[in-house]
Each structure stands twice: as structure tokens, then as C-alpha cells.
């Protein structure tokens, strides 16, 4: 464990935390709270976590800098961010990414066009369901990178936006 600052992304939010070693425990400063934490992997995919006086067995899975954790009836995904952000501010919006792989059935905007927040940009069909990808903010269309009828990957940028807040 390397003490110091750590930046996480969870539920679309950036969070800055500070970790300090304290004997067998770690003290994690989250917002205004300081939590004593002890964590061990007891079986592959099972953590034992002691947070303050609470002891819990939790299923988890790790992929590189991301941890999936089932805690108190819910699954959470927490990733390590490369850089800091405002304390628990929204994640800075970047390119619009296709939420899932599928068939690009329609593109509803053209380069140069101004779009409002929430305006449909293009439509992907996958698993028998049409998914409309919308502009996350007011912006201008810079480029359109794929044509209807093409298969697009999850995460692919089909419409590049510029401007906005």
C-alpha cells in the first residue's frame, strides 16, 4: 500500500481520497470522514473488509485500475483516475461514446450543425433494441466518423462534438 492521495471515479463522479498507514490498518480520508480500514483477500474474489467497527465479507472483481465490489446489497464499480479533479465534482464531459456495440442505423446530424443538450445524434441497434445516442451538452458537430449500415464498437466515437461549457 502506497500512502498518499488517490483519485477515484465512481458513479460518474471524481473523488479525491487520502490514505495513511496506521499499524495494520489504513486510515482513509473521504470528504470530512476518516475511516479506519482493513482489507484482505480471503479467497479469490472475496474480500474481508473491516471499516471502523463494521466487518463484512464482500465479493469483488478487479480489472487493472477498476474494482467491482458488491457491498450491502449493491454492486459498485470504482476506478482509479489518472489525474485529480474537483472534490466530488462531475466527471468532465468529453467525446460522446457509443454505449454498446451494434449496427449504426441512422445518423441524425451533420458536421457544423449546432445541437442542444439531449438532442439525438445517431441511432445504434443491438440486442433487438434501438438506442438513441444524444448530445450530453449544447455543442457543435465537428465530424461524423461512421455511416449508417456500419457495425460500430462499444466506446467508439461516431459524432465528434466541439464547444460547449
Amino acid at each position, binding site marked *: *500500500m*502506497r*500512502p498518499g492521495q*488517490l483519485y*477515484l471515479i*465512481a*458513479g*460518474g463522479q471524481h473523488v479525491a*481520497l487520502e*490514505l495513511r498507514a496506521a499499524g495494520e490498518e489504513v486510515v*482513509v480520508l*473521504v*470528504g470530512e470522514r476518516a*475511516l479506519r*480500514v482493513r*482489507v*484482505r*483477500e480471503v*479467497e*479469490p*474474489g472475496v474480500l*474481508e*473488509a*473491516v*471499516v471502523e*467497527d*463494521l*466487518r463484512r465479507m*464482500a*465479493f*469483488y*472483481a*478487479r*480489472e487493472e*485500475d477498476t*474494482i*467491482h*465490489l*458488491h*457491498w*450491502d*446489497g*449493491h*454492486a*459498485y464499480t*470504482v476506478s*482509479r483516475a489518472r489525474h485529480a479533479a474537483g472534490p466530488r465534482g462531475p466527471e468532465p464531459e468529453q467525446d460522446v461514446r457509443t*454505449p*454498446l*456495440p*451494434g449496427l449504426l*442505423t441512422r445518423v441524425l446530424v451533420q458536421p457544423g450543425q449546432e445541437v442542444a443538450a439531449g438532442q439525438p445524434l445517431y441511432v445504434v*441497434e*443491438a*440486442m*433487438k*433494441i*434501438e*438506442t438513441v445516442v444524444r448530445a450530453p451538452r449544447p455543442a457543435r458537430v465537428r465530424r461524423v466518423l461512421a455511416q449508417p449500415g456500419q457495425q460500430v464498437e*462499444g466506446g467508439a466515437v461516431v459524432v465528434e462534438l466541439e464547444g460547449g461549457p
Partner: protein
Amino acid sequence: MVGTVNNRPPFSKVLVANRGEIAVRILRACQELGIRTVAVYSEVDATSPHVLLADEAVCLGRAEPEASYLHVGRIVDAARRTGAEAVHPGYGFLAENPEFAQACREAGLTFVGPPAEVIAALGDKDRARRLAQVAGIPTLPGHPPADDDTLERAAHALGFPVLLKAAAGGGGRGMRVVRDPLQFRHALASARREVVSSFGNDAILLEKYLQDARHVEVQILADRYGKVVHLGERECSVQRRCQKIVEECPSPAVDTDLRARLGEAAVRLTQQAGYVNAGTVEFLLDRDGCFYFLEVNTRLQVEHPVTELVTGVDLVHAQLLIAAGHRLSLRQEEVSWRGHAVEARVYAEDPERGFVPSPGRILRLREPHLPGVRVDSGVREGQMVPVHYDPILAKVVAWAADRPTALSRLVHALREYVVLGLKTNLAFLLAVVTHSAFQAGEVSTEFVDEAFTSWHTPDPPPEVLAVAATVLAQQAPSGASASRAPGDLDPWGRLRGLRLP
């Protein structure tokens, strides 16, 4: 229930023309009856649970449904080559395709479902409406499939809101509620596009949209000899954009008298249609207890387990026995309803992004198992959930002697359901089943779309952030850290006394 002869298997071998949880469900039912089983699969499903469970498995082709689970020729061929006597279509895919039923018949295979002609007649939503009218069952005002201009004029004549429905197919695909006349053309075009890719037919019909209504459906069983019984209703009002997500039996809005009237209508309609095998008649139910025919689903429903748990009748066993020509020995007056069952459908979808399907690898899976809870699952830990099919992972069904206890069981089961690695609707399902309106049984088909517009997935509590941070601050695990060390002392045993001494 359905008469069996000395418990001889109804068939020697059955091919299950489906995948996922419903294929697993049907394969198990066959095995219980002593029937040998054949699974079919697409290339991406080579190691899916249904393939591993079957006695034999035949690869149909590439992942695309048209090359695999929708490919009539290949499925019939697989059945022929493996010596299967019957084909069970499950739901979705070819289940309501009359050409498939016909192709099976021509190949000398028993199709586990109604005759092709009945599927065709009832699958055409417009013909089904007319059949219902002939049987004296109320229908909502509407207009048969037509071109865009005709439908738009009809919509204005009916008055908004109106409902667009695919004339072929089911499962809510292509359904659109149109409230704003200006949106009509756009919604119609979108519905036609969605429908053509699912059913190969873009015919859309129109119905007056009934506000604040419940979706209630009646399960029937019909044998080859004209006998039909109903197994009561299922309440399916909890829908997100016309897709059912939580179903229960009985309906909180249906009493004994209404159940008898609904059941009688369903029996009359299916009897007149010459129906054979298991089927479902869907109705809308208004606040005054008036009901209107919606459509007939000529197959096993996703939500069939709630009826099974409450009536004690195994619908898949019944389907197989009826298909084998057995007589239905169950009398209507013998059907009894005991307790309450609720089902929640677990989907691989991302509630944060408008519930788009969220395919990916299941890194960790622990399904809940408690008394009174049944999980019909179609996935395994380590599996890649493919992008090409319906994103259902499993159904969690809770039974108890009364509705509050059944709901309580369902909540516990959903909270104990561990799926890591892909997004699911589990948190959303929990929000729905713990909502006060649902708990009170006071919901219409608009409930979910109205009550959860501002819902978002729960933020991680500080404990989760602290634990995650502690783990992430360590080196990413090498393989070694995941070793099982079976000879060790129980590692849990090392830490004691942190609870009350």
C-alpha cells in the same frame, strides 16, 4: 395433471431451439421427464450453460440470429440429424413463427406449441382482435395495419394518446405510446424500423391508448382434444417502455369473480381459435374492473414461473405432454391458487445510460438461493454475455404464503444477487419493488415510466470508496495473489472478536 402413461417419457429426444435461461429451463424439464436433449447454439454460445447442460449440442452458425437461432432450415436439419422427435421453441426467436411450426411438421417433427395455422391467425394482431370481437370479448377502438397517412388520420379520429403495435410478433417490440400528434410520424417510422428487423414485417396497427390501466394476462392450457383450462392471471403492469420487468400472481387487482370472468374469456377465445398447448391471453384492466383484449401469446411466457409457483402446475412439463398427445386430465375446478409469487427480470443493461444493453464478461456471479426463491438463470461465471441477443440474464422468483412476505423475500434475494463485471438493472429492480406504490399493489402500466424518471443508481457510500481505495492503492494482483492455498488455515478464522466478544 396432464395424464401420463406409466411415467413413460412423452418423447425420446427433444431439441430446444433457444438459448439462455429459457433453454436451460426447458432442458431441465425434459431431463426430469426422462427425455434426451439436444441444444443448438451459435458460435458465441459454444460454452453457454444451455450447451453444457444438454446431452448433445449442434452449432447452427455465426452469432447473428439470422444465421443461428432464427435459421429455420438449420434448426430443422439439426433435429433431423440428431433424431429428435420434437422441437421446443421457448420464447422469442422462432417461437411465434408459423413458418417454423410448419417446417417442423413437414419434417415429421412435433412442434411444442399450437398448430402453424393457429399461430398465424393469433400472431396477426389484427386478426386476433377480430377473433376476440367474434368471441364477444371487449377490444379497444383501433385501426388495422395501413400506410402512414391512413394511420395518422385514424389516430386523429381515435384521439390521442394512441398506441402503435407491431401486427406481427410480441414482447413489446415496436410498441410506442404516442401522446403528441406531432410526434406520430416519427414514432411510426421508428416502430416500423424496429419491427422489421425483429419480425421481417413492418405492419403496424393502431389502438386507443388506455390510460392508468393494468396489464393482466391469463395462462391457459389446451389439449389436442378441445379441452381448455385457465390457470388464472398474472399481473404484468410493471413495465419500462412496454417491456415487462416485474410480474406477479395473483394480481392485487383481481378477485375471485374477476378471475373467473377473465379466465372464462381466455378459454372461450382460445377454444374458438382451435388453440392447442400453453398460451397466454393478454388484457388491459381499467380501474372499474372492465377488461379489454390485447393479444394472444402463442408460446411459453418469460413470466410463466409465477403461475407455476402459485398453481403447482409445471407449464413446461404440460407443454411437452400435450405436444405428445396426452389428454389434459386437470379439471378447471381442480385449479387452485396458493400464496403469492413475484418475479423480477435481471437484465444486463445500464440504468445510468437509459438502460442500454450492457454486454460483457461476468467476472463474478453468485445467484441468491433462499427458501421460497427460484432463480431461472442462463449464465455462468466467466461467461461473455454476447451483444446479439436479448440481454436477460436470469429471473428471480419469490413465493410466500402472502404478498408482503413474497416481496420481502424478493428484496432479500435481489440484494444477495452478485453479478460483477457488467452493468445490470438489479439496483433498479430493488428500487421498483421497494417503492411504496408497488408495495401497495397500486400500479398501472405507466408506473415505472412515471415514478422513476429521476431515479439514478445509488452512489457508493464512503465505506465502499474507502475499501476500493485501499485495494486500488495496492499493486494490481498478479496471479499469485489469487491462489487458493487449500492447505492453509481458514483465513476467515484468523480474524476474530471484532464483533461483540
